[in-house]
């Protein structure tokens, strides 16, 4: 099929349509709404069979999704940011049911303050839940990712819900050429859901519930979920191999771009990684051996594959579009844990926090991160973690603060409590 221009949101909707989903519980939130609008229009026009129901909250939406999946039908849903957090109780709960379905998350930074733009603290809040996570870097990966996610979720050796993540704005509203897979080919790749032991018939209604358990049985069930998730690394590898055979696109657990002979490698995930790919091309033109390693699969964490791809690399610039407050970047922490004690692991892992709330990362910043990392390799001294933030940005914040403080002084009944930054020192 000829490529067509699609936003990441419409690509996600196409993923659901091509997967022939039976049920879509929905609740809108910026920047995800276009997904359910698109599905709603298709269901309404009859282009897509299946049922779509708008729920009164994300909490109910996730409950409905898990409950429907527990009856053995194929379920799709989508949310973002605060919506994902609102559903968090059920995120853990339905993962524990081992009911497979696909939830698309359109990444958007979390309050407070409020932003509409992308960072990964929302999806990372669900990191430990039992949901598996596939992270997309472009709109083609979104439609492919949804199809891969169903295969992974429904695999008898896995049986876990899967989240497919795309970045708000940078993918959700960004149109790019997308090759929509042929529906007949998809039907071959993704067979009807065989629910196995999950069975439900309206003619023979039964209840399903979970029990309150003590530590020992609780440990068993929790750890079984963990083992199933770990299984998913090799299962995913097989599925991605089959996908490549059938559709010709590489969708492995990690994207390794120009890492073969690389001295320095950028390590990051999501759509900003394509900016890093561009920087790698420019740095290579300038004669520098730089590459990019990007996990598509974050849960389960493909530690061995990552470590293998980084063998022989001297320094890794880890770029975290997230912030674990009081700790730092999540990817940096996890990569350190994965590499510690491994022979041939890179000696230097530098840590950069960038792209919070969709803040841009410029080409020069990528070049500089590579330079800082190379210098750390040469000197053996790793610099402390750095927030990508410029003098100009801080000046702008100071300006906004001075305006806000004047307004507070003028309008607050209690008067202003704060002083402009730096004033305290001038006494």
């Amino acid at each position, binding site marked *: 099929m000829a490529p067509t221009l699609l936003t990441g949101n419409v690509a996600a909707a196409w993923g659901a349509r091509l997967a022939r989903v039976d049920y879509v519980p929905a609740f809108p939130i910026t920047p995800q709404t276009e997904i359910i609008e698109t599905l709603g229009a298709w269901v309404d026009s009859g282009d897509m069979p299946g049922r779509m129901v708008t729920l009164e909250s994300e909490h109910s939406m996730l409950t409905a999704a898990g409950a429907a999946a527990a009856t053995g039908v194929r379920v799709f849903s989508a949310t973002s940011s605060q919506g994902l957090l609102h559903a968090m109780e059920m995120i853990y709960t339905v993962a524990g049911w081992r009911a497979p379905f696909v939830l698309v998350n359109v990444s958007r930074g979390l309050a407070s303050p409020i932003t509409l733009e992308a960072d990964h603290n929302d999806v990372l809040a669900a990191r430990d839940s039992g949901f598996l996570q596939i992270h997309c870097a472009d709109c083609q990966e979104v439609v492919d990712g949804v199809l891969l996610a169903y295969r992974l979720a429904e695999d008898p050796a896995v049986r876990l819900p899967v989240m497919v993540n795309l970045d708000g704005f940078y993918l959700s509203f960004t149109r790019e050429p997308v090759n929509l897979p042929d529906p007949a080919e998809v039907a071959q790749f993704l067979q009807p859901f065989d629910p196995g032991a999950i069975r439900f018939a309206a003619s023979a209604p039964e209840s399903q519930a979970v029990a309150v358990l003590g530590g020992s049985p609780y440990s068993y069930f929790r750890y079984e979920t963990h083992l199933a998730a770990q299984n998913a690394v090799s299962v995913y590898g097989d599925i991605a191999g089959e996908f490549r055979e059938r559709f010709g696109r590489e969708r492995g657990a990690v994207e390794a771009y120009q890492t073969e002979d690389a001295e320095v490698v950028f390590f990051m995930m999501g759509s900003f990684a394509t900016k890093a790919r*561009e920087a790698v091309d420019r740095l290579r033109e300038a004669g520098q051996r730089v590459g990019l390693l990007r996990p598509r699969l974050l849960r389960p964490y493909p530690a061995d594959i990552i470590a293998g791809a980084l063998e022989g690399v001297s320094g890794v610039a880890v770029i975290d579009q997230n912030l674990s407050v009081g700790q730092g970047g999540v990817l940096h922490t996890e990569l350190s844990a994965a590499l510690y004690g491994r022979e041939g692991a890179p000696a230097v892992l530098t840590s950069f926090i960038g792209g919070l709330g*969709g803040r841009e990362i410029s*080409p020069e910043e990528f070049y500089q991160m590579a330079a800082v990392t190379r210098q750390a390799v040469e000197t053996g001294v790793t610099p402390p973690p750095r927030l990508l933030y410029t003098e100009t940005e801080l000046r702008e914040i100071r300006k906004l603060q001075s305006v806000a403080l004047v307004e507070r002084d003028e309008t607050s009944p209690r008067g202003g409590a704060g002083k402009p930054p730096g004033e305290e020192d001038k006494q």
Partner: protein
Amino acid sequence: MASRVLGTALFRSGFTVQDAPKYGAERRGAPIFSTVRAARGASEGETINERGIIHRPDLVVVADDTLLAIPAAGTLQGIDPDTVVLVNSRESADTWRHRLNLQGELLILPAGSEVEDRADLPHIGATCAGAAACLLGVIEPEALTTAIDEELGPLGEEAVAENRENASAAFEAMIAHRGIVTEGAAVPAKDYEPPAWVELPVDDASIAAPDIRAAANSVQVRTGLWRTLRPVIDYDLCGKCWWVCSTFCPDSAIAVEGDKPVIDYDHCKGCMVCVGICPPHAIGSIPEYLAQQREQQTIEEGEADGTDPADR
């Protein structure tokens, strides 16, 4: 819309394309912008790796010239002497070049003098896309109209025809400058200007928390405008229990004045909780539009017979 039309026109002309809008909190009057990137070699599977804002644009189209004076809009961010700036304006190119102290090319897309309110600006998206298509020089008029058909088809034939007309007129208006936009190069990784990164200081929470405080103003916000149903108290049936409806009103929009409940329609959102809760069923509901029609009628009748509606 402009970016989708231009993006599709480029796509239909054999380019790999990426287009995207960007905006902050949705509110009337907020600046929005969109970007279009195009690369040759679509048939060879060329992909566009850059995304987000364009750091060094080859062409900037400003649909609303009032944005040029707003720093936060950042309309001229990243331009260099090779950038072409196209402004939809009633002012002259010389005026803007002087005001903005621009070295590069600045062109004017004449703004219609009949348009008073910019919010009513018709077809500005298609108009800008048409002008931009001409300046790029790689889009034939047919590709432009095809793109408008594709992007605006769902809006109906009339809208498509009007937008085609405006886009074509803008394309023609720029014909003397066709192909004036040149392709900029990528930022080289050699001899680049390093970013001026800064160490964030630890600020006091009084300024480092994003809390906004202002004098209490919720009374001034007329949330009653949201109402689609209006609760109406029938005082003949009201049991004057005086607390049930006012206690249960989630917006505190029912006050007890004297011995009877009074609904504050400036702030009642029409949730109908009072209608359901009233013990003697004394509160009914009517559609808001009907209520407003009746009010209007009463005022007009009053004007006709010379009485002041406030006296009734």
